[in-house]
């Protein structure tokens, strides 16, 4: 049973560029959440997708956008990159119906460096 996978593992971009990160959820999961983890900090919630719609959003600007596909995989897009966007981006998947267990499974992350 494959867990949550993310691609690419590392990425280097220049200020002002755009980036797309990808996530495949754990088999059987239908909800994908994205988190940003800056160096030395805890993960910060960006947004969550379910049924191809954004259901919740954290305190991130509109430069951060996402998409969920019919197969439940997801993309995170960041436009007009800033140096402060350098971070580990984590994807987590869960099952919406499993509200009692409320457990999110995390991928290994994508390390984004903006120069």
């Amino acid at each position: 049973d494959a867990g949550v996978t993310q691609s690419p593992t590392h990425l280097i971009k220049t200020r002002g560029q755009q980036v797309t990160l990808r996530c495949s959820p754990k088999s059987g999961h239908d909800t994908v959440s994205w988190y940003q983890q800056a160096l030395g900090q805890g993960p910060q919630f960006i947004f969550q997708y379910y049924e191809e719609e954004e259901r919740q959003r954290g305190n991130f600007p509109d430069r951060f956008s996402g998409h969920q596909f019919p197969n439940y995989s997801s993309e995170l897009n960041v436009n007009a990159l800033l140096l402060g966007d350098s971070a580990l981006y984590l994807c987590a998947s869960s099952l919406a119906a499993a509200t009692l267990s409320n457990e999110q499974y995390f991928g290994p992350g994508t390390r984004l460096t903006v120069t």
Partner: protein
Amino acid sequence: AQSVTQLDSQVPVFEEAPVELRCNYSSSVSVYLFWYVQYPNQGLQLLLKYLSGSTLVESINGFEAEFNKSQTSFHLRKPSVHISDTAEYFCAVSVPRGGYNKLIFGAGTRLAVHP
């Protein structure tokens, strides 16, 4: 709004000694509580969780945490640590909202186990 405070950024300890990693949270509503562990260059792994019922929860590798509602705490303990426990530990809360279960993390505690 909810917040999580991890009182120690770093905890050095010798192998086979006991350890406690402290976590306090703030919330005006009931929350679920989690401890995640992050090994170097990896994503987050769920260590244990409190949803309801017994206030003492245990993991399969010897960690335990106790939910204390009056003190709004969820401290993590292990009676005897191993070198392999060296990692970053994150306390997190989520508010039960159907399938929409974003996690709010603390800043993390780096546990360093020395021989």
